[in-house]
């Protein structure tokens, strides 16, 4: 068996050598025969003749010996490939256009596939990821997906029977100021339960990870560093484990370093254990700020876990109706929340690139059909000489496969570059768990797509090439090369088809562009121009009283306000559009008491006096805070317009008092002013009721500094002034408010940009397709046009004739595409903002755009047709 294989491989790859050997062997035989004949007394001449005669046909012997090798099919394929390659080299124009078109289509697919694969398909980088589950806190009365309160979490953890580990993290990062070792730095930490790393199945790269006992008092001052922080800040110090860091003024022992790929939750630079014993904030049932992650016991399904948790939720409800009425947990696979909003976008893009590839296929099929027509004579001759239909079809298919594979190879190069581009484009919206790159899976995908592509665009021309009536083509002498109606119709249909796809894509992109423009024109409620922002967290150990904090913020405000070029220095606990948020339940003093769960709810912010001025948020009624009120935590409050209309629909809100027991259990706050609404959560979110309390005593603040000119020019001064007050005080990233605004719409932006790019490619390809068909048929009709011109037709008539033909195709494609878009863009609804999925303006503009492109694509060949000199054309026949 092995021997046979060896022989065949030899036969295939060492063909010249094998041939030489065969020749030598037969030569030897012949010479022996001649010698023998001479020995019998013949003359050399006779001897040679007799030997040759007895031998029979040398070539026949050779052929039969070759057949024995059993590689005929492979040899033929090899022959086809060499022949195909020769034909492709002979036609560099065709080859170049076809390969480029295919590589664009394949490259786009591979690039998007690489992202899809990394984000949606590859298993999460945790041990046995199928058993990992995420739990959302859920209010049954139509509540949103939010967190779980710490005490509820402990109950779920203790009572469940379906989880091997039930862990949790804080829903928001904790910022810790690292001091004492070089530059002070503000680090993003996550508080996690002691079993968090066990649940995920992540082991330490160095030292060890947390254990359940780290939740206990006395063993909670420990940290695990991320690989990046360890390598960056600590230079990969191999003896880091056991060292002590000063974080927020407290000493923490480093017990371990996480493995390189571990970045969860997103952005975490280090992890600290949640100490249920030490932290009084973790003893509440009403604040839902934990995000549980569980590892199911082997063999347990998600539905079983859900049923288990539902039973616990019902018990808790019965036990603690005041806090737990209506609350339960909703279990989802861990991937869902990690992937988040990017899933529908990626699905849409993957669909779009699929369409682009389809268009590329159609274009190349069309080119290939046109070329097959001009090769009619060659094919007819080969068939006349005895080549089978199948043999010729196979040869054409081989040629097209060769094209597809070349296109695929080039596509991979484009994709490698495209993936970088997409990753740069999508940026932070790619979940950090995903390692995006053109990997082995993607390469396999490319090969598959290339072969499929080759089959798709290669089969029709291959079959059609063998269609024509042989004798007619030969009689015809190959002139005007047998343009059968069938082939023409196929080409026209293909153009209609690709135009329809392009229209569908264009409308999808058009809708996104319109949404994005709408989004850009949304008034956020503040003026982002010329505002510099940064966030600072005070080290609690140093600023352990409200007075000390207030003194720091007051001093910082005064120093910054005194800088030249600064118009106002605003401070707020939660900056709009930055992802920071906080809300509070409140009641109105003097109204009858309400049942728990029926309080009003509003965004809760603390600001300084100048915040409204620096963000240019309009004061609609009443007054702002005085400097006195702002610095002394006076019992006054500003409310937003929407809060005023929600809570005081027919009343004068000014002078009323609000109670916010959650944060200020002993005070009530007088409403002194009503301010404009802002879009805090995102430009596409409707404004939410908000209240602003004066306070400079908070442990963290965002600065919003309005500058007279370029705000970034103030960055160095802000750092300098902060250092001057407290050299240990770190500063967060300094960004302009415009950057914050722009980052908040990065998702719609990349989505629009990428789909727009693909739609543009589709439009160009469709235009090229129309051009190709019209140009080709025009060439074929040059004789007819010559006759028309000779008989007195004007060049306008010829223009009309040619353009009419192309426009008819384009219109058919347009109608089909509009229909397709009507049904397909529905699935994009969630991605649109402010317009419907059947937005008539978008449909109209795209239709117009397509007609214009079609006209241009037809006009070029039509104009050439009018330049036809009738005499030359008629004589050439």
């Amino acid at each position: 068996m092995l021997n046979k294989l060896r022989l065949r491989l030899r036969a295939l790859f060492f063909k010249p050598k094998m041939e030489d050997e065969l020749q030598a062997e037969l030569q030897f035989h012949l010479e022996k025969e001649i010698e023998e004949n001479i020995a019998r007394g013949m003359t050399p001449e006779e001897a040679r003749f007799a030997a040759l005669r007895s031998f029979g046909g040398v070539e026949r012997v050779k052929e039969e010996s070759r057949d024995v090798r059993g590689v005929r099919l492979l040899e033929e394929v090899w022959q086809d490939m060499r022949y195909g390659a020769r034909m492709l080299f002979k036609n560099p124009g065709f080859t170049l256009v076809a390969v480029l078109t295919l590589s664009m289509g394949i490259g786009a697919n591979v690039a998007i596939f690489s992202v899809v694969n990394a984000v949606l398909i590859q298993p999460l980088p945790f041990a046995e990821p199928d058993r990992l589950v995420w739990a959302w806190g859920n209010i049954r009365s139509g509540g949103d997906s939010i967190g779980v309160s710490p005490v509820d979490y402990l109950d779920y953890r203790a009572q469940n029977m379906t989880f091997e580990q039930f862990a949790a993290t804080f829903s928001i990062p904790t910022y810790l100021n690292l001091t004492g070792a070089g530059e002070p730095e503000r680090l993003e930490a996550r508080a996690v339960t002691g079993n968090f790393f066990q649940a995920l199945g992540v082991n330490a790269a160095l030292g060890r990870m947390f254990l359940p006992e780290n939740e206990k008092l006395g063993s909670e001052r420990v940290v695990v560093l991320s690989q990046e922080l360890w390598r960056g800040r600590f230079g990969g110090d191999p003896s880091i484990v056991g060292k002590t860091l000063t974080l927020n003024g407290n000493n923490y022992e480093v017990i371990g370093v996480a493995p390189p790929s571990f970045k969860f939750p997103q952005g975490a630079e280090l992890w600290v254990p949640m100490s249920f014993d030490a932290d009084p904030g973790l003893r509440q049932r009403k604040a839902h700020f934990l995000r549980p992650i569980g590892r199911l016991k082997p063999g347990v399904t998600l539905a079983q876990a859900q049923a288990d948790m539902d039973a616990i939720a019902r018990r808790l409800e019965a036990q603690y109706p005041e806090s737990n009425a209506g609350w339960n947990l909703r279990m989802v696979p861990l991937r869902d929340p990690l992937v988040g909003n990017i899933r529908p976008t990626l699905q849409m893009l993957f669909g779009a690139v699929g369409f682009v590839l389809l268009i590329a296929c159609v274009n190349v099929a069309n080119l290939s059909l046109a070329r097959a027509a001009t090769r009619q004579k060659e094919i007819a001759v080969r068939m006349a000489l005895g080549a089978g239909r199948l043999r010729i079809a196979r040869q054409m298919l081989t040629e097209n496969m060769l094209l597809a594979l070349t296109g695929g190879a080039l596509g991979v190069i484009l994709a490698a570059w495209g993936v970088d581009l997409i990753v740069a484009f999508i940026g932070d919206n790619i979940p950090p768990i995903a390692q995006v790159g053109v990997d082995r899976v993607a390469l396999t995908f490319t090969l598959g797509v290339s072969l499929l592509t080759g089959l798709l665009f290669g089969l029709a021309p291959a079959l059609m090439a063998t269609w024509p009536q042989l004798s007619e083509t030969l009689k015809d002498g190959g002139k005007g090369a047998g343009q059968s109606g069938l082939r023409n119709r196929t080409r026209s249909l293909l153009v209609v088809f690709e135009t329809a796809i392009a229209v569908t894509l264009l409308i999808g992109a058009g809708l996104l562009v319109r949404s994005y423009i709408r989004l850009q024109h949304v008034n956020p409620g503040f003026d982002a121009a010329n505002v510099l922002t940064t966030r600072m967290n005070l080290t609690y150990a140093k600023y352990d009283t409200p007075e000390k904090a207030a003194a720091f913020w007051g001093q910082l405000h005064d120093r910054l306000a005194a800088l030249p070029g600064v118009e106002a220095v605003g401070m707020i606990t939660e900056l709009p559009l930055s992802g920071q948020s906080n809300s509070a339940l409140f009641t109105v003093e003097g109204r009858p008491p309400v049942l728990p769960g029926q309080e009003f709810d509003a965004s809760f912010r603390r600001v300084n006096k100048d915040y409204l001025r620096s963000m240019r948020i309009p004061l609609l009624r009443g007054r702002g805070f005085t400097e006195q009120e702002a610095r002394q935590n006076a019992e006054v409050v500003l409310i937003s317009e929407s809060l005023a209309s929600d809570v005081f629909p027919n009343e004068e809100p000014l002078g009323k008092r609000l109670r916010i027991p959650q944060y200020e259990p002993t005070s009530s706050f007088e409403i002194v002013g009503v301010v404009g609404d802002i879009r805090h959560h995102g430009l596409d979110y409707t404004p939410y009721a908000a209240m602003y309390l004066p306070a400079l005593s908070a442990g963290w603040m965002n600065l919003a500094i309005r500058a007279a000119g370029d705000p970034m020019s103030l960055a160095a001064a802000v750092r300098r002034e902060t250092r001057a007050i407290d050299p240990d005080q770190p500063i967060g990233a300094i960004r302009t408010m415009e950057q914050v605004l722009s980052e908040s719409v990065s998702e719609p932006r990349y989505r629009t940009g990428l789909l727009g790019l693909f739609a543009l490619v589709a439009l160009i390809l469709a235009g090229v397709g129309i051009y190709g068909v019209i140009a080709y048929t025009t060439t074929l009709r040059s004789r007819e046009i010559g006759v028309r011109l000779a008989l007195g037709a004007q060049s306008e008539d010829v223009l009309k004739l040619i353009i009419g033909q192309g426009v008819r195709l384009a219109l058919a494609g347009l109608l089909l595409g509009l229909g397709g878009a009507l049904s397909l863009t529905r699935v994009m609804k969630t991605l649109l903002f402010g317009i419907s999925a059947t937005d008539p303006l978008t449909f109209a503009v795209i239709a117009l755009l397509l007609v214009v492109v079609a006209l241009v694509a037809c006009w070029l060949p039509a104009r050439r047709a009018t330049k036809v000199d009738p005499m030359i054309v008629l004589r050439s026949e």
Partner: protein
Amino acid sequence: MKKTQTDLLQGTLDLLVLKTLQSGPTHGWDIAQRIQQISQDVLRVGQGSLYPALHRLEAQGWIASEWGASENNRKAKYYKLTAAGRKQLSAETETWKRFTGAVELILKTS
């Protein structure tokens, strides 16, 4: 022609070639000569069928080939029996004997 020459039956050539090679490696021309001599010129192997047969047997792994020097020092391709070929030879010999025996029986009784 002194004697009647017989065309080889389909499939018997393989057997003859294998048998000839049993006595040691040799080249194609020699194989043809030996078959002719031993059969006393009754069997003549057409070169046109000998070489395809040799290549076929080689492809099946029953014989192997290598280049060597002939009696008068010319380059010639030598064939030799492989282990699998030896087995094949005894199997085919067996089949042949059964076949000719059966034919003989029929011829005798009629």
